[in-house]
C-alpha cells in the first residue's frame, strides 16, 4: 500500500469538506423561498417535472431541476439547483445537489448527502396557478383589519348557476294520518339565463293511505313556477296551483320529525285540512339570506278525515281523530318575511332566524263543524292574522352556545279566526313538559283554549306566545370506540355531542270580552304569572337527542322524556 503525504491528505480533506461547509440552510422568511422557487421554475433552462422524480445513484442531471408535488428521491447527482414545490425531498447517502429550494415540503437525509449551495426552505404549502405556461404564486391572503370586514359573509350565495331539468320522484318528506306517505312525481326545470332564472316544479301527488281510489282523496297536485330577475338580488314573479293536504300548525315541529313520530310511534302531532286553489306571488329576494313575498290567492278549504295508514308501534290503536275544520272558499292576501343568517344548521357564527307573516283572509265559511252538532250555514268571514317566529343563535365560546326563541301570533282584527288558523302550545316542539293536546290536566286550559274537550282536540286559541331558551355545551363522548387507534368501525360512539339545559314558557288565549276563562281584551296581554313553564335537560347527539322535561307551573304533570331527531329549534 502506498503511503500518502500528510499534507495531501489534509488538502483533500479540506476540499471534500469545503462544499458541505459552504451549504447553509436557511428557513426562508416571508416569501423568499417561494419567490426563488418560482423564478427558478420559470427559468428557461430548468428541467421541470410534475410528480415523482427519482434520480438513481448512477445518474447525473446537468442543470437545474424543478419538481411540483413530488415526491423527490435523489441518490445520484444534480449539478444545478433542485427546486421542490409542495414536495418532500429525500436525499440518499452519497447524493449530491448544487443547491436546494424546498417550499411546502420537508428535507430528509441531508446529513449523508452533499449540498454545495444554499438551502432555502419554507414549510408552508404554496398555492399557485399557471398563466401562459408560467407558474405564478397566488397572492398572499389579505389580512384586512377593517372591523367591518373581519366577519366574512356568513352564507355564500350557492353557485347554483347551472341549468338542469329532470324527472323527480319523491316523497313529501313527511308522513301523517290523513295521507300516509304522499308521493310526488313530475318534471322540474331550473333554467339559468343572463338575466336570472326560471324554475318550474310540477308534481302530481299520490296519497298512500288506504283506501286508495281514483279520486281527490288519493290524488292531488302541486305546481309552482317562478321567473326570477337578478341572481343575487332581485325580483321574482310566480304562481302556484295546488290540491294538497296542509298542516294547521306546521311551526311547532319540522315535517320530517312530525312524520317520523307518526310513522314510528303512531303519534301524529299535527292537524290537517285540504287546500285546493291557486295563488300568484311577487318575491323580493336577497340571496339565500332573506326574502319578502307578497301573494294573492283563492282557495277552497275542506275537511280532511283521518285514515288508517300503517305505523311501526301501536298500529292496532286508533289514530287521534283529525279535527273537523271550517269549510268554504277564501281569498287570501299574505305578506311573508324570511331572514336566515345562520350559515347552516351547525352554524359557526350563530345567527338570526326570522319568519314573519301577516295574512288577510276574506270569504265564505261554514264554521265550527266540530264544535256544534248541527251544520251551520255559510257566513261571510274577514280576518287579519299575524305570526312571528324569531330566533337568535349565539356561540359564547367554541364549546358553548345560547339559543333563544320567541314565537307569537294570532288574531289581529276582524272576525274570529277560522279553525285552520287557530293556535296552541304544548308538546315536544313547544312546551315538552306538557303532553301534546292533553291539556285537560291544566286548569284553566291555556294550552289549547278548550280544544281538548272536543273530538280530535283541535287548537282553539286566538293568540299564543312562547319563549324558549337553551344553553348548549359540546363535549366529546367516546364509548367502546377510540378512533385514534383505528377502531372507528366498532359499534359505539366516538363523536361530539352536546348537553342541553333549557326552559320554556308559553300560553294561548282567546280575544274577547274579559271575564271568561282564558279570554282577554284585544289590547291586553295575559300576566306572565299565568304562563305555563317547564325546565329540562338533555343530550343532543346531532342526529337524535333525548330530553327530560318537567312542568314547573303544574305540579301534577309528570316528568316527560322526549326523543327528538333534530335540534329543539
Amino acid at each position: 500500500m502506498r503511503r500518502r503525504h500528510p499534507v495531501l491528505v489534509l488538502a483533500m480533506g479540506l476540499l471534500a469538506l469545503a462544499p458541505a461547509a459552504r451549504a447553509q440552510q436557511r428557513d426562508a422568511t416571508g416569501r423568499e423561498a417561494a419567490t426563488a422557487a418560482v423564478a427558478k421554475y420559470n427559468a428557461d433552462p430548468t428541467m421541470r417535472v410534475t410528480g415523482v422524480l427519482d434520480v438513481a445513484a448512477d445518474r447525473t442531471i446537468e442543470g437545474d431541476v424543478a419538481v411540483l408535488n413530488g415526491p423527490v428521491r435523489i441518490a445520484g447527482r444534480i449539478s444545478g439547483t433542485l427546486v421542490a414545490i409542495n414536495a418532500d425531498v429525500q436525499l440518499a447517502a452519497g447524493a449530491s445537489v448544487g443547491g436546494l429550494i424546498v417550499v411546502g415540503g420537508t428535507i430528509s437525509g441531508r446529513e449523508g448527502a452533499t449540498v454545495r449551495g444554499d438551502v432555502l426552505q419554507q414549510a408552508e404549502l404554496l398555492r399557485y396557478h399557471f398563466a401562459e405556461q408560467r407558474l405564478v404564486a397566488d397572492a398572499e391572503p389579505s389580512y384586512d383589519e377593517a372591523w367591518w370586514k373581519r366577519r366574512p359573509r356568513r352564507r355564500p350565495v350557492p353557485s347554483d348557476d347551472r341549468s338542469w331539468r329532470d324527472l323527480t320522484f319523491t316523497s313529501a318528506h313527511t308522513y301523517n294520518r290523513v295521507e300516509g306517505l304522499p308521493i310526488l312525481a313530475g318534471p322540474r326545470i331550473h333554467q339559468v339565463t343572463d338575466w336570472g332564472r326560471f324554475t318550474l316544479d310540477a308534481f302530481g301527488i299520490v296519497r298512500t293511505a288506504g283506501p286508495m281510489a281514483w279520486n281527490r282523496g288519493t290524488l292531488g297536485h302541486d305546481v309552482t313556477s317562478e321567473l326570477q330577475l337578478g341572481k343575487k338580488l332581485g325580483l321574482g314573479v310566480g304562481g302556484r296551483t295546488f290540491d294538497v293536504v296542509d298542516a294547521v300548525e306546521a311551526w311547532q315541529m319540522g315535517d320530517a320529525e312530525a312524520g317520523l313520530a307518526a310513522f314510528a310511534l303512531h303519534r301524529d302531532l299535527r292537524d290537517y285540512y285540504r287546500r285546493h286553489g291557486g295563488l300568484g306571488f311577487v318575491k323580493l329576494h336577497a340571496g339565500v339570506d332573506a326574502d319578502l313575498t307578497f301573494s294573492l290567492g283563492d282557495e277552497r278549504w275542506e275537511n280532511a278525515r283521518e285514515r288508517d295508514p300503517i305505523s311501526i308501534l301501536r298500529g292496532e290503536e286508533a289514530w287521534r281523530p283529525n279535527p273537523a275544520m271550517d269549510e268554504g272558499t277564501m281569498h287570501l292576501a299574505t305578506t311573508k318575511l324570511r331572514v336566515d343568517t345562520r350559515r347552516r344548521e351547525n352554524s359557526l357564527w350563530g345567527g338570526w332566524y326570522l319568519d314573519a307573516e301577516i295574512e288577510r283572509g276574506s270569504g265564505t265559511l261554514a264554521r265550527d263543524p266540530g264544535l256544534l252538532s248541527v251544520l251551520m250555514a255559510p257566513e261571510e268571514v274577514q280576518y287579519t292574522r299575524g305570526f312571528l317566529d324569531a330566533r337568535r343563535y349565539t356561540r359564547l365560546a367554541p364549546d358553548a352556545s345560547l339559543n333563544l326563541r320567541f314565537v307569537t301570533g294570532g288574531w289581529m282584527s276582524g272576525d274570529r279566526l277560522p279553525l285552520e288558523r287557530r293556535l296552541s302550545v304544548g308538546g315536544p316542539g313547544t312546551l315538552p313538559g306538557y303532553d301534546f293536546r292533553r291539556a285537560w290536566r291544566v286548569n284553566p286550559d291555556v294550552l289549547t283554549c278548550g280544544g281538548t274537550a272536543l273530538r280530535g282536540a283541535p287548537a282553539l286559541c286566538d293568540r299564543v306566545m312562547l319563549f324558549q331558551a337553551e344553553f348548549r355545551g359540546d363535549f366529546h363522548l367516546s364509548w367502546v370506540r377510540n378512533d385514534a387507534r383505528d377502531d372507528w368501525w366498532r359499534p359505539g360512539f366516538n363523536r361530539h355531542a352536546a348537553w342541553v339545559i333549557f326552559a320554556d314558557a308559553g300560553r294561548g288565549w282567546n280575544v274577547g270580552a274579559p271575564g271568561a276563562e282564558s279570554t282577554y281584551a284585544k289590547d291586553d296581554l295575559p300576566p306572565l304569572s299565568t304562563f305555563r313553564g317547564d325546565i329540562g335537560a338533555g343530550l343532543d347527539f346531532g342526529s337524535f337527542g333525548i330530553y327530560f322535561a318537567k312542568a314547573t307551573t303544574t305540579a301534577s304533570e309528570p316528568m316527560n322524556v322526549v326523543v327528538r331527531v333534530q335540534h329543539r329549534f
Partner: protein
Amino acid sequence: MPRRLLRSLLLVVVLLGTTAARATAQGKPTLSIVAPAADQAAHTGPVVVASHMLTGRKLQELLASGFPARLHFTVELWSVGGWLNDLERVTEWDVVVRWLAVEHAYEVTQLVADQPFSLGRFAQLNDAAAAVARPVRAPIAAFATGRRFYYQATLSVETLSLTDLDEVERWLRGELQPAVRGQRNPGTVLGRGLKTVATRLMGGERREYVERTSVFEVTDGKK
C-alpha cells in the same frame, strides 16, 4: 413444552411485534395548530398541520374501494372576554383524497372557496398522506386590541363518496331521482341508502380532531 408449540408462540410474538412496529411507523393521526409569534400575530395567521390522517386499515380499505376521504378544516379566531369569548374570524378549506383506479394513483386536492388546487397524484399512500400533511397557513390574523386571542382548529375526516353522501341525504329527504335519471340502479339505492344510514348513525365514517393554541396577545410588531 413441545417444540412445535414454542415455535408457534414465537411466531405469534414476532407477528405481533411486526404489526405493532408497522402501526407505530404509520403514526397516530395528529392535528396541530401553531399561532404566530406575538409580534407577527397582527399580520399573519396560524399554521395548521394534519399529520398521518390517512392512517388506519379501515380508512385505507375504504379509500382503495373508491370512497374519497374528505378532510374539512375549520380555523376560528376567538378573543377572550371576561365572561364570554367572542368568535372573531373563521376560515375553512377542504382536502379531498381519492383513489384513481385507472391511473393507480391517489389524487390529493385542496379546495378553498370551491376552487380546487392539486396537491399531486401519488402511487404510494404515504406520499398522499404527506401531501395532506403539508403545513397550511390559515388566512385569519388577530388584530391590535387590548384583548387576548386564541385559535381553534377543527378537522373532520369523512370517508364517503360525496355523490353517495348527496344521494343519501336526498334519500333521507325522500328523493330518488338519481335512480330515476338512470345514473344508478334503482334496485340498489334502497340497500345502499340503508347501509350508509346505519354507518352514519354509528358515526363510523367520521373522525373529528380539535386543537387549540394557548392564549396570546398581539404586540405592536410592524410588518
